[in-house]
């Protein structure tokens, strides 16, 4: 433990990990919807820092760009549209908090026990030996080219599907008036 604490990178990990967990806790407990979405920004930022500690710089940047840049904006739009008063709302949670907390504690215990007893003592590569993005690119264009194209198709399908679901169908009267214009 003393040796573990003597490495400065572990101090970075401790500070960022605590910040990540505190903001993740606020995401699921905050009584203000907008605050919950903004705490998700902090939690995902902490996750991105963890990716950098694990020498996965490209994934960290993708998280910052896609999640903090785009997905959170989408969430804030969703919140703004689906609830007019964005203030305090006491009925944001249901009354099953205790069973839910028990279940999540069990999930945490089982997951951490299983992964730590199986992989816990494995040494990670030293920080600073970053994965070069070129090898990621070679994997995407070489071995994983079919999944890569499939994922692109999924994104296109999600785009078209999102528009098709969310657009408001015109009533017959409106359709008539539009046609006459």
């Amino acid at each position, binding site marked *: 433990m003393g040796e*573990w604490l003597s*490495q400065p990178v572990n101090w970075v*990990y401790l500070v960022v990990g605590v910040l990540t*967990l505190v903001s*993740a806790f606020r*995401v*699921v407990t905050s009584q203000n*919807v907008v605050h919950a*979405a903004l705490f998700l920004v902090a*939690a*995902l930022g902490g*996750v991105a820092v*963890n*990716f950098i*500690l*694990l020498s*996965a710089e*490209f*994934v960290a940047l993708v*998280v910052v760009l896609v*999640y903090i840049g*785009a*997905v959170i904006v*989408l969430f804030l739009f*969703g919140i703004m*549209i*689906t609830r007019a008063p964005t203030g305090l709302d006491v009925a944001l*949670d*249901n009354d*099953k*908090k205790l069973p*839910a*907390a028990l*279940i*999540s504690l069990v*999930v*945490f215990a089982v997951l*951490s026990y299983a*992964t*730590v007893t199986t*992989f*816990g*003592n*494995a040494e*990670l590569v030293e920080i600073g030996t970053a*994965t070069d993005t070129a*090898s*990621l690119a070679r*994997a995407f264009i070489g071995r994983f080219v079919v*999944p890569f194209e499939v*994922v692109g198709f*999924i994104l296109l*399908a*999600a785009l078209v*599907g*999102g*528009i098709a*679901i*969310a657009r*408001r169908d015109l009533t017959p009267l409106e359709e008539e008036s539009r046609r006459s214009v």
Partner: protein
Amino acid sequence: MIASQFLVLAAALFALGVYGLLVRRNAVLVLLSVELMLAAVNINLVVFEAMWRTSEAIGQVFSIFVLTVAAAEVGIGLAIILMIFRNRQSANVDELDLMRW
């Protein structure tokens, strides 16, 4: 750095996501909890990549696939929530009991 510190962090994030998924009533907040769980899965994938160091960085490749599908899921999920809100003037998941027996 050993693997267990990141594995425990990922497990805690996943458990918090499970808690939010079970407790929240607002559908947008349920989606936020799902995002937390997906982030935990991504941490695990990247940790395993840092353990084994494959030549093509397969763990990171898969974490990027997960990120992409998660982004698509958020788009579709929010569109569905928008539709439900427009039809029922509510985005609370426990009020959507139309198909409840």
